[in-house]
């Protein structure tokens, strides 16, 4: 099928756009590429903040109630006293770490940065469908960021009820003691939700309406597919969280009783609303990562994606099933027990598409010609870490086992393998891969390899022992495990994990150093248009692409993964180049 699916944008030529001033180039811009880069810098800032909070959490768990070296005395009184973290402060650190990492780091990096930067470029569009809405979405994200950080300075301190903010602890000031902080959390989540909904609406419209001639749905790169499905999940799931956050705010400040049993409310209602959002959210955090990784693996294995359509269908299945598994967070919440059994079955089934994707990645490297660039190393490690995270999820899907490991460090290990070992590794890989296109210069590969190996080692050192801690019975979100007889002996594991986390913190600076050095000397290693010999449309234009992206609207002749086609001189075939008459492309 090669029907023209959309009108090309009226004017895409760079010549139509005069030079703009600093403000309109970097601050208030309608250019999707710059918006993507705005998201990148902001999210990297939050990555440092969220990572710093994680290190404080880890320090307290390894060496409870001892003064934090160097920075302890600078911590606010709500968090630490005499430099040592206090239990209430520990809860705040945990809550803010999780909230920042989920809503202000991983989502903005995957969806904000790569969604904005890649979608128009990979489908051959000049920009997003609604550039103003796009920039508005970024600034709403910034506003929500200020709001959440402000919670640290609120009277009583930051919220300490976990990122899940279970009511009625979160809904009544007399129980949590942080009315202002918790309210700010609610508002921040609400505003952040508006940003996500605005962004997602834009992505869906752009993908449906603005594909270049010849770019059929099944010729779209998997990155675009994954972001498209993610955007649909966002539009369906985020409003539920926004509504819940608004209800929580009313309960806290206006005397309503949505979640307070004393006034006839229902604490479980919060959990249902939260997890109705929360489980699709888990897939929102991993689907785009899968898309990015698929792209990188195909390019550096020099092979078409094994089972392209199976990959697409698997992502659609994950998106659909993601909406009917939320109850598995509530097996032991006091919910009806028959419901638990039902959710257990749907949860088992959502593992199937993930397994299919894993097998297809393995099929893609099979008989490839693999080049181990830094981007490829991260993408390959993603697959293994994702397998560990997926397999450990099976323990929780089994209701009787969940009875034992629920709310322990086993869960903490599980989701860090998926979100750090999965999403963050994919983000690192994707940054090495698309950095040349974003900034016109190549990141240093040697520093990149150092970054990769240290990340891989320290990541596993930090998070693998958490499985054992969880099996040993260590609960999540406790400020001091040593108060329990049966947990005291597990301390060596906590200390190993903390050493790993410190290593990860250190390694992040190697990465940032690489970015800074590269940008500082950007002229000394300029990026060619197509440094990786990849097929997708973004590599047919200069690095970085000019305003409007494509001087001439491209025409697409085939799918994005035609690598190593027999009979061709080069081992790739850009989507804009028709296959020569003597070459036959396989249907996918």
């Amino acid at each position, binding site marked *: 099928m090669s029907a023209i699916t959309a009108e090309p944008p009226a004017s895409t030529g760079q010549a139509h756009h005069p030079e703009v001033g600093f403000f309109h180039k970097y601050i208030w811009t309608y250019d999707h590429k710059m918006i993507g880069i705005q998201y990148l810098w902001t999210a990297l800032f939050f990555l440092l903040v969220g990572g710093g909070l994680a290190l404080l959490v880890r320090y307290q768990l390894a060496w409870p109630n001892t003064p934090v070296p160097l920075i302890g005395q600078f911590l606010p009184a709500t968090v630490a006293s005499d430099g040592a973290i206090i239990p209430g402060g520990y809860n705040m650190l945990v809550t803010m770490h999780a909230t920042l990492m989920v809503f202000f780091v991983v989502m903005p990096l995957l969806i904000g940065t790569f969604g904005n930067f890649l979608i128009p470029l990979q489908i051959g569009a000049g920009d997003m469908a609604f550039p103003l809405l796009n920039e508005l979405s970024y600034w709403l994200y910034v506003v929500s960021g200020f709001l959440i950080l402000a919670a640290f300075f609120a009277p009583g301190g930051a919220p300490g009820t976990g990122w899940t903010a279970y009511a009625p602890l979160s809904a009544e000031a007399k129980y949590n003691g942080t009315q202002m902080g918790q309210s700010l959390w609610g508002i921040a989540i609400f505003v952040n939700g508006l940003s996500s909904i605005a962004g997602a609406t834009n992505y869906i419209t752009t993908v449906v309406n603005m594909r270049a001639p010849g770019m059929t749905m099944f010729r779209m790169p998997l990155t675009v597919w994954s972001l498209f499905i993610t955007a649909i999940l966002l539009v369906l799931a985020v409003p539920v969280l926004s509504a819940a956050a608004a209800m929580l705010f009313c309960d806290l400040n206006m005397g309503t009783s949505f979640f307070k049993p004393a006034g006839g409310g229902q604490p479980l209602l919060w959990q249902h609303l939260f997890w109705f959002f929360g489980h699709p959210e888990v897939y929102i955090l991993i689907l785009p990562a899968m898309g990015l990784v698929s792209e990188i693996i195909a390019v550096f294995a020099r092979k078409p994606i094994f089972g392209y359509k199976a990959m697409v269908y698997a992502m659609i299945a994950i998106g659909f099933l993601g909406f009917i598994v939320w109850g598995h967070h509530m097996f032991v919440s006091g919910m009806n027990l028959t419901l638990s059994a039902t959710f257990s079955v749907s949860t088992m089934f959502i593992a199937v598409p993930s397994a299919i994707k894993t097998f297809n990645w393995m099929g893609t490297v099979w008989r490839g010609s693999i080049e181990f660039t830094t981007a490829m190393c991260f993408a390959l490690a993603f697959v293994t870490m994702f397998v560990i995270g997926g397999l450990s999820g099976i323990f929780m899907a089994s209701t009787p086992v969940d009875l034992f490991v629920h709310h322990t460090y086993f869960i903490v290990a599980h989701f860090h393998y998926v979100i750090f070992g999965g999403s963050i590794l994919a983000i690192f890989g994707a940054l090495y891969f698309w950095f040349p296109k974003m900034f016109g210069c190549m990141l240093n590969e040697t520093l990149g390899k150092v970054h990769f190996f240290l990340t891989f080692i320290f990541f596993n050192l930090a998070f693998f022992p958490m499985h054992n801690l969880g099996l040993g019975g260590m609960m999540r979100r406790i400020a001091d495990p040593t108060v329990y007889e049966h947990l005291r002996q597990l301390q060596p594991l906590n200390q*190993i994990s903390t050493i790993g986390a410190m290593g990860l913190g250190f390694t992040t600076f190697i990465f940032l150093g690489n970015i800074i050095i590269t940008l500082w000397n950007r002229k000394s290693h300029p990026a060619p248009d197509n440094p990786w010999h990849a097929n997708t449309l973004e590599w047919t234009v200069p690095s970085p692409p000019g305003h409007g992206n494509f001087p001439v609207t491209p025409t697409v002749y085939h799918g994005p993964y035609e690598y190593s086609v027999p009979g061709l001189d080069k081992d790739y075939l850009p989507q804009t180049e028709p296959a020569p008459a003597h070459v036959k492309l396989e249907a996918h």
Partner: protein
Amino acid sequence: MKFLLRLLPVLAFGLSPALAEQYNNLYWAPPNVTVGGEEIDKILNFIFWLTLLVFIATQAVYITYLVKYRRRPGVKAHYSHGNNKLEIIWTTIPVLIFLGLAIYSNRVWKELFRNPPPDALQVNISSYQFGWDFRYPGADGKLGEVEVKGITAENKFGVKADDPAAADDFTATELVFPAGKPVHIILNARDVIHSFYVPSFRLYQDAVPGRTISWVWFEVKEPINLELACSQLCGKGHYNMKAPIRVLSQEDYDKWFDGKVKAAAQARAMDDEKSLHAAAN
């Protein structure tokens, strides 16, 4: 240095027997102590071996591919868009495995949540920020009924005032019960959500304010001392919200029980006397 020494057994996966003894619990769950808990351990072990096998198998293939198909001059990658037969195979196999696992899990789940035996010792547990209260049936062996809406600062358990069975109930600040006898807990929360968690029981259950959770019961095989932990973030003091659990022999339990019943009767007598005096004056 001492710290490094403590790390050694962890890093070297338990080498010296003496050290391994000291840290015998680093790699696995604490021993199960309940009847039925071994069913959970069986599934846990089964899933562990299954996932380990899957992990090793997939990674062995994956790493072999990565080594074997690394870039070499003159070797071109194989051009293939996939294989539908393979897709069907590797979709069907996981479906069957997961279906089996779901059936197995749900069968055990049903078994775990069958109705408590009628002769079970009923204990009412009321959780609050940040502690646990326990209420036991007195000499009549019957626990006074609980009404969630009746929970107030004075009536911590929300006991129905007109229930005659409640008259001789007594309270405790620790969970004490005999080994070898089923214990049926009636679980409440007075303020926020708490959670009843004992790893050695293989048991976790949320206590939700406004609800009475009455489907949890267990039977511990041998006398043992443990700690009850709260496993749902409930505020500043959450980390330290614990209570002792003492599982006694029937004989020791009877002694404890008699002592408690007598003390409760005395306290009631004193109260009655006081109120008599008050009435007389």
